[in-house]
């Protein structure tokens, strides 16, 4: 007799349960360590710098995690930490964990320290990681987009030959780009106008008005008058619709012209940069006050803006707007990582959300601090959360030298206009010495007031960096100062007597075409002394540099300006003309409509005018 075939192996249930128990034990033994390693790896990759944790403990029963000894290294200086936190307590919402999502109800940081020295240098970021690439890109951006004039020069040679290649000039690139925009604007405007079919509408309506004018209501009869009234009413409706469309086209065109005007300003800014570039090829120092400010403080100021741009781009990369599926690199493992796609859904939890957090400085030795910091709304899918991420801190850190801090950060990555902005003001902070490129001395600002503001909205950037100090000291490299050039010697004489320092740098324009204006209280004093010394020779050289640039780009820019003006004038003439034609024919039709309606009163139901 055939034995019935068994499907299940019931006696294996015991070993399987034992296997499950082994997994639980392994989890209890290794989960904290694995989570700590994963947290370090994930944060390191996201921030593009080494992140260390002394310990991590998961409290399963409380749905909470305790972290200690967090260190985030400075990606640009491996010997210091940007931030250290003594303890971090994270309270999790347990429900989203079932969907593999992390929602933090509350996060508390204590024992915060900034810009501390590291015991061991941080590992450099993986150059191929997204953050590593962004760091390189922003460093390259600062090098490519800003060329600060030099002051450390010897003899001025205004007779030096100057050969420029058009490909080197930013004006040529900006103009080429704008020509494309002008052409597409013209095509869009022409197409929009052609689509309206104003001419045929005016012609047919004029013919209808003429026909109605010659008609006699008595001869047309009731039915004829009704048909004529319907024709007139329909024609008037078409005219009204065309007028609305014309108004929309007018608004669109005006917006486009605004963009073109901004483009012309960018071309002009590029031309100014080309003058600086040409002056650099002639190795001419610039003794205009703004250029002296840029020469002295351009590099340190752009350093701050570059860092802000780097972190804003990290935010843009990891916090995309919208609810589209989003591809991320898969988890690091022995097998190929592949790509993990996120599928956000409305009214569902985002993959990561930090609802609110606060920094507690009242603990430990910091009882005298009067400092509050809170943050919240930090999420990987802001469109789902619908509120911007914010971080605000204000107060006073006590100690021998108290430091006042005001800090606000806002990141809005949803809606039509994503924006990241940062405002910070620190008072009483000891700034590191600022070295001047190529000059044999540096300034130690001492305890200073520092203000910083940065906004990134789409491609538009703007920001400012300010330093004010009343106790600066100047330090020179005595050996280099002995062999210093005339210019260097003059600058040194001017600055050594100064104890005040006021610097302001303003960033503007777009990421692709940024502008930077730097001014300081040293500029005018140095400029006057230097101009008196070498002004005439310098003016000749500068004129040669400008002439060289203008000879290559002058005609191109003039033609571009003419094209923009021509398009704008043409559009601004045509649109009112089209509108007046529509108004005129509508008036005629309404006159005929009233005449026909009046004559037929009593026998006809009159249309509403």
């Amino acid at each position, binding site marked *: 007799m055939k034995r019935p075939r068994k*499907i299940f192996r019931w006696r294996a*249930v015991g070993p399987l349960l034992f296997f499950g128990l082994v997994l639980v034990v392994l989890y209890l033994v290794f989960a904290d360590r694995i989570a700590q390693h994963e947290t370090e790896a994930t944060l390191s990759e996201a921030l593009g710098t080494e992140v260390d944790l002394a310990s991590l403990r998961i409290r399963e029963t409380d749905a909470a995690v305790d972290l200690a000894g967090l260190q985030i290294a400075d990606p640009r200086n491996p010997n210091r930490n940007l931030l250290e936190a003594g303890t971090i307590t994270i309270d999790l919402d347990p429900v989203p964990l*079932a969907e593999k999502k992390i929602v933090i109800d509350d996060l508390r940081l204590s024992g915060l320290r900034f810009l501390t020295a590291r015991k061991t240098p941080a590992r450099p970021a993986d150059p191929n990681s997204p953050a590593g690439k962004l760091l390189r890109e922003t460093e390259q951006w600062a090098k490519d987009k800003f060329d600060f004039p030099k002051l450390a020069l010897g003899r001025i040679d205004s007779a030096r030959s100057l050969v420029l290649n058009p490909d080197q000039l930013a004006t040529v690139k900006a103009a080429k780009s704008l020509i494309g925009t002008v052409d597409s604007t013209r095509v869009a405007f022409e197409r929009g106008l052609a689509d309206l079919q104003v001419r045929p509408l005016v012609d047919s309506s004029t013919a209808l008005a003429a026909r109605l004018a010659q008609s006699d209501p008595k001869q047309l009869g009731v039915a004829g008058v009704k048909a004529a009234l319907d024709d007139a009413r329909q024609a008037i409706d078409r005219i009204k619709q065309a007028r609305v469309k014309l108004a929309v086209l007018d608004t669109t065109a005006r917006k486009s012209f605004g963009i073109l005007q901004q483009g012309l300003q960018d071309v002009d800014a590029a031309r100014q940069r080309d003058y600086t570039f040409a002056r650099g090829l002639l190795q001419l120092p610039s003794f205009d006050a703004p250029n002296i400010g840029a020469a002295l403080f351009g590099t340190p100021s752009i350093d701050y803006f570059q860092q802000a741009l780097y972190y804003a781009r990290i935010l843009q990369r990891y916090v995309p707007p919208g609810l589209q599926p989003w591809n991320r690199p898969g*988890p690091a493992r022995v*097998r190929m990582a592949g790509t*993990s*796609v996120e599928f956000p859904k409305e009214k569902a939890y985002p993959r990561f959300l930090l609802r609110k957090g606060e920094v507690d400085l009242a603990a430990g030795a910091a009882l005298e601090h009067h400092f509050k910091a809170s943050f919240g709304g930090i999420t990987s899918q802001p469109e789902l959360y619908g509120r911007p991420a914010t971080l605000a801190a204000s107060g006073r850190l006590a100690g021998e030298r108290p430091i006042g801090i005001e800090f606000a950060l806002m990141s809005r990555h949803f809606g039509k206009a994503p924006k990241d902005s940062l405002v910070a003001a620190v008072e009483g902070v000891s700034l590191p010495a600022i070295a001047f490129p190529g000059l044999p001395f540096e300034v130690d600002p001492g305890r200073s007031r520092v203000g910083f503001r940065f906004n990134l909205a789409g491609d538009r950037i703007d920001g400012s960096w300010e330093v004010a100090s009343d106790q600066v000291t100047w330090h020179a490299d005595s050996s280099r100062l002995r062999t210093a050039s005339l210019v260097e010697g003059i600058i040194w004489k001017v600055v050594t007597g100064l104890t005040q320092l006021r610097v302001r740098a303003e960033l503007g324009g777009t990421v692709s075409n940024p502008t930077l204006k730097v001014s300081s209280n040293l500029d005018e004093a140095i400029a006057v002394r230097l101009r008196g010394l070498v002004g005439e020779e310098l003016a000749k050289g500068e004129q040669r540099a400008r002439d060289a640039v203008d000879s290559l780009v002058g005609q191109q820019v003039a033609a571009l300006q003419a094209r923009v003006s021509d398009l704008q004038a043409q559009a601004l003439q045509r649109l009112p003309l089209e509108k007046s034609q529509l108004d005129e024919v509508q008036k005629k039709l309404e006159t005929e409509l009233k005449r026909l309606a009046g004559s037929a009163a009593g026998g006809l139901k009159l249309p509403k005018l």
Partner: protein
Amino acid sequence: MLTVIKLLQSLFRTLHSEGSPRQVAAGIMLGAGIGLTPLLSAHNLVLFAAIVLLNVSFGGGMLGMALFTPLGFLLDPLFDRVGLALLEVMGLRGLWTDWYNIPLLPYTNFNNSVTLGSFVVWVVAAVPIYFLAKRGLTHYRATYGERVLNSRFMKGLKASKAYNVYSWFVPQ
């Protein structure tokens, strides 16, 4: 060493006597699922539980895993392409979005291109793997099986005491 001996015992016993070719082939088929897909995914727990609880050859499962794991590494670029293509199909976006937001399902890592691609390839290849394994095993037992069974190596291996635990999973 003990583990290696255990695995070798498992392999030879599987090939020679334990379980019908169907049971061994089914075990190989399920083991191939674990081998082809990245190990740390929740669906592999289900596959492992199936190998243990269903009346298939456990040794076959281990054999399938051992054979298909290196193949999985080799085919990862293919899995990545297949998986990404599936994840980016517009018609399936609603399905993936629903699955992504269902509790526990995201732990299968189905939204990872390599995991999804390898799983789908395994599902498609499962039936051919089963029949090929069954046919291969039947052929082996009919031709080389007896000779290998009587070899000195096999006798030495069988004399080892380490396979007691393994016998719990021998198909009936």
